[in-house]
């Protein structure tokens, strides 16, 4: 009995992936844990390991869109032997536990015989037409007609619901239950989702009319959909303030070397911002909450998303339990996450579960921006470039190092007073770093 290679849970709100590359050929003998293929999600690329050793029988093709629970291949462990194979769920290497199939998954039944067991003449003429045009497998279409007959409507619904069989339909209807017991040995993440593989501008070859048309990749489309959806479901507003970072800069200058010597990691701004955010979130818990339908979910912890830009694109790894991290821990964790992101070694667990995000456009010179929220989070803090500006202090003009900060928030959850007060509090913490230590 061949072992199915099924798509595991891929992380929160990730319901589908594209099989972008087979790493093994049809008929190859593969060893358990060997990577079989590469899947691209809108968060990251993932390798899918073999759940068992045996001969590979590919089911899905490169370019196919796959959903949680889809069978992409089968491993025939008994090409010669007769012993039954263990099911993937019990294999030792739990890549990720396969969750129960989503309730709306229309046409997946890996146990059914492959097509060929339903003869065309057993189908009614309309069903034959639909099945041929949409390249469906009638053996997999649930029939609701008398005696279980496949009706035209059954075939039409199967062609719409099943993204695997239809190139043009990428529905988001599937609700995926992410297994709470996350794996200890995560699937290897190749690289952050690449926004597009378009080459640098100077290397582009343009058409005769001076344009170059590059179709959006499926993942780019998916990201685009998510962004638009975030905009449409949440009532996103942005409130601004400015922070006088002069004191933090002085602090840094004074203790940078010592910090490096003791902790082995450089003291940046992020640890200060992280601490300020964590303390402020404690006072404004709604800013750390998320909205699920009509339910507000409060969190007793802060998992802080840190937006990282790499030359391959943007990723937002999550620093878990930021509220418990010391300055050194924050800096080292952020460094580790940034490196993992650039190297393509992030696990899916590291990309999910955030309750609040900090994004820093300042490194690129951004003065002011309106960040977009990372659903299902309620808010995101944007840091920007630090500029020396003439400010008035005690009725005197002084040169201070200033940064504009922006808080984009979901107004369904957080109202104006809260968001402004939160941001003001962050500013207060940052402008007098002693407050961070004293938690006042």
């Amino acid at each position, binding site marked *: 009995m061949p072992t199915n290679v099924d798509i595991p849970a891929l992380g929160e709100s990730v319901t589908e992936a594209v099989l972008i590359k087979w790493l093994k050929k049809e008929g190859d003998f593969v060893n358990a844990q060997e990577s079989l293929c590469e899947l691209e999600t809108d968060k990251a690329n993932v390798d899918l390991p073999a759940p068992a050793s045996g001969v590979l029988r590919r089911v899905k093709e490169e370019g196919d869109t796959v959903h949680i629970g889809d069978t992409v291949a089968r491993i025939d462990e008994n090409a010669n032997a007769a012993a039954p194979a263990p099911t993937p769920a019990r294999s030792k290497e739990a890549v990720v536990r396969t969750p129960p199939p989503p309730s709306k998954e229309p046409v997946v039944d890996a146990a059914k015989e492959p097509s060929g067991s339903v003869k065309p003449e057993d189908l*009614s*003429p*309309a069903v034959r*037409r639909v099945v041929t045009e949409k390249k469906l497998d009638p053996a997999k279409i649930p029939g609701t007609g008398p005696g279980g007959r496949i*009706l*035209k*409507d059954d075939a039409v619904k199967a062609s719409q619901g099943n993204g695997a069989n239809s190139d043009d339909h990428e529905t988001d209807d599937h609700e995926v239950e992410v297994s709470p017991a996350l794996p200890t040995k995560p699937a290897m993440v190749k690289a952050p989702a690449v926004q597009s593989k378009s080459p640098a501008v100077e290397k582009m070859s343009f058409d005769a009319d001076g344009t170059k048309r590059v179709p959006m990749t499926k993942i780019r489309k998916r990201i685009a959909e998510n962004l638009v959806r975030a905009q449409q479901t949440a009532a996103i507003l942005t409130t601004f303030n400015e922070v006088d970072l002069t004191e933090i800069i002085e602090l840094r200058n004074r203790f940078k070397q010592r910090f490096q010597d003791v902790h082995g990691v450089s003291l940046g701004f992020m640890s200060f911002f992280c601490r300020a955010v964590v303390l402020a979130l404690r006072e404004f818990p709604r800013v750390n909450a998320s909205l699920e339908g009509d339910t507000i979910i409060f969190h007793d912890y802060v998992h802080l998303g840190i937006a990282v830009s790499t030359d391959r694109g943007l990723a937002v790894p999550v620093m878990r339990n930021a509220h418990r991290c010391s300055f050194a821990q924050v800096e080292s964790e952020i460094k580790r996450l940034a490196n993992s992101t650039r190297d393509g070694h992030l696990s899916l667990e590291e990309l999910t579960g955030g309750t609040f995000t900090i994004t820093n456009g300042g490194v690129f010179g951004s003065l002011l921006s309106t960040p977009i929220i990372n659903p299902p989070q309620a808010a995101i803090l944007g840091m920007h470039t630090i500029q020396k500006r003439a400010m008035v202090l005690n009725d005197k003009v002084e040169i201070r190092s200033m940064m504009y900060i922006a808080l984009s928030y979901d107004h369904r959850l957080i109202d104006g007073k809260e968001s402004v007060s939160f941001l003001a509090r962050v500013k207060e913490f940052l402008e007098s770093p002693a407050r961070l230590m004293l938690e006042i």
Partner: protein
Amino acid sequence: MSESNDYDLVVIGAGPGGYVAAIRAAQLGLRVACIEKESSLGGTCLNWGCIPSKALLDSSELYHQARTSFARHGIKADVSLDLPAMMARKDQVVASLTRGVASLFKKNKIESVIGTAKIVDARTLVVTNASGERALKTQRILIATGSDVVRLPNIPVDGVDIITSTEAIALKEVPRKLIVIGGGAIGLELGSVWKRLGAEVVVIEFLDRIMSLMDGEMTALLQRALEKQGITFKLKTAALSVEKVGGQLKLTWKSDDETGEELADKILVAVGRKPYTDKLGLQDAGVALDKRGFVIADAHYATNVPGIWAIGDVIGGAMLAHKAEEEGVAVAELMAGRAGHVNYHAVPSVVYTHPELAGVGSTEEQLKDKGVDYRVGKFPFAANGRAKCMDAAEGQVKILADAQTDRVLGMHILGPRASDLIAEGAVAIELAASSEDLARSVHAHPTLPEAIKEAAMAVEKRAIHF
């Protein structure tokens, strides 16, 4: 002489419901007796209804065509009517079919008992006939006593000039003028018979349309077709009273605020049928009837008395022979511990006029009432090759399909052989077919059913021949 026998099932009534139930029960191994009060088997259908009327409809249509359409075929004929011969043929057809039921009973070892039945209790009946009384003991009783003509109190039937369908299929001469009270199937069919044979026919109908339960667009087309044949319709008209004047009848009618009079030689009262349960002893046996006199039966055809079932016209619903037959099969199967079922959504209705009108499934009015989103495909017989060859190109096929699933919800046919063609619609509905399934099934050419295929294509606006 009285005997007492033990049966598994005694059926009261040998009409299409009763005799079919008896045969099915016998096939399933039950010991069956069937009681019939008339001397010939087959009930109303074989003796006074379906069969004799269709025999006369076919004969009269041939006569009519010989007189009016043969010339178009290049046939010169001098045609005259021999009504007694026509009636004799009708009687032969009836006789052969009723004898057929008797031989089916013999073949299936069903005891046929002639006499009037009375239910004593759920296990006992008494049959009375010229020979005396006989008690029958049984495990089960099936009431299939059918229906009788509804009479109008103000238009009393005398069986000579004011008649019912029973007399209308056996008139000795063609009336000069016939008034038909009732624009249902029986009135339209028998009115057509006598119109073709030379009578002047006026149809009086109380409602604002004929065949009120069928699709409105189609019944309007049928009425126009019949009017073109010379039948006059007075709709929204009530028959008030009748009196004999000279050698004729004078009918007084009322329509809205207008009243009037109409003279006729014969008046046919065809306003419907009511359940027949006379002398059955139902009250004593405790079998419940509803306020219109129908025996109350549940979804499994059981009455309120355990061991007594009922089917057919006597329980109401569509009073059609094929409905009774289906119920007969279903109840026999249920009695034998099997799953018997009738799909009431796939029971066709037919009017055997010319052109025939047939329908199965929902009408447009019913779909609109239920708020169902549907699409329509129509195809006229004027564009059908076979109909043109037959010189019968009047009418159309109309198919109603669900707008979302394309499932066939209703099929309505006005035209030649609609009664035969509607079977495709009934099967389509039973199999939950889509209109596309019909459109893509091969229909031989040139045939009338191609009009169904094209109407199915017309649902997607892609008919080829129109």
